[in-house]
């Protein structure tokens, strides 16, 4: 599966509690809707580490990297490219 699909799937199954967001799209907001909260970010960071084998640096935990599935996927892709 591509990065976006894996991230979307994880967020849908682990973090989305409101059925309003069950059809989550890659550019839907995750922060202003509260889909990712302070507990959720811990889960996402662990998921990124386990699934893709990359670590997110503390300095990268900023809104622009987590505001959408697309933003998270881009961050992961950048890191994967950096590993090669």
């Amino acid at each position, binding site marked *: 599966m591509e990065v976006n699909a894996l991230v979307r799937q994880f967020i849908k199954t682990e973090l989305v509690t409101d059925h309003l967001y069950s059809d989550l799209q890659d550019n839907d907001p995750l*922060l*202003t809707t*509260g889909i*990712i*909260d*302070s*507990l959720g*970010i*811990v889960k996402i960071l662990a998921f990124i580490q386990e699934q893709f084998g990359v670590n997110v640096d*503390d*300095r990268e*935990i*900023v*809104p*622009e990297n*987590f*505001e959408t599935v697309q933003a998270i996927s881009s961050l992961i892709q950048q890191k994967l490219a950096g590993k090669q």
Partner: protein
Amino acid sequence: MDFSWSKEQLELKRAVIEFARKELTDDLVQRDREGTFSRDLWQKCADFGILGLPIPREYGGQGMDRLTTVLMMEGLGYACKDHGLIFGMSAHMWDVEMPILDFGTEEQKQRYLPRLCNGQAIGAIAITEPEAGSDAFSLSTTAEKQGNYYLLNGTKTFVTNGPVADVFLVFATVNKKLGFLGITAFLVEKNFPGITVGKNIDKMGLKTNPWSEIVLDNCKVPVENRLAKEGNGVAIFNDSMEWERSCILAGFVGSMEKQLEETIQYARERKQFKQPIGKFQAVANRIVDMKIRLETARLILYRATWLKETQGSAPLDAAMTKLYLSESWVKSCLDAVQIHGGYGYTTEFELERALRDAVGSTLFAGTSEIQRNIIAQHLGL
């Protein structure tokens, strides 16, 4: 696995004990009663190098690794019963210096760290608000950017070192809609326009360390005083909480050791029913429990510090350390009071003060309940 300290590390611990025995003695009972902070003792610790232990030499510190720092703080707690002073210095070190070191620009490090290490400036962290305690990320202090400044508005409370602090690490949101990722950290100096620092609030223990409210009313903070990026506050908060939860109680492990030694001595000397009370199993068992708590507290402290230093992040171990050390300290203080009987209840024996001090440790840096929540979450619950 090697559990031994090097000769040099043990030498450093001995030197701190020697220093504390010689220099950090004053009328602590009286100062506790009055709730008086001693700038003089703070400065002596700064001159000895304690305030800069984990900070690299280029920023005015001692450049010690974290484990050696923890060992030295343990030595300090062993020889100095002023837990308020140790707590205040630990908050200054782990909650203000470390975030600046880990997240600051070179300019910020040069501007603040040398002054914080040499005692010229005292640091404080301001997260908690009257309506945002355990749920710290629900804070409502705002930071609105206007040109080269941010305007900060809000009220912070329970700020350790507050009344004597020169630099406050303040957490505020730049955009409430972004939730926890709107939280941003700022280095606010006490003479910036718009900050009002309250008076010391009387409290149960740790009374030689002052704390207060701070009110930010259109407080003008230059952009260059923002620590890291907008929205990076949560990462800074988590990093500093991990340091705090892992290491802030190191001094109190030393205190537990001293208390254990004194209690053993007392149980050997105090006679009832024509024999030392330590010969009664009920008394000896309490002392055995104190010993086991001390040794396990030590191990968990060293492991969490080592993990945090080598892996960068150790949230589970930090939470376990904070929970276990604080609750062990309270239990051991209660045991010590009980073994000393009525004398243990007097102010003169200094055990009731230690107990009052210990209770605070189950509240700051996240209450015991919050540490349990964090641990449960890491266990997938």
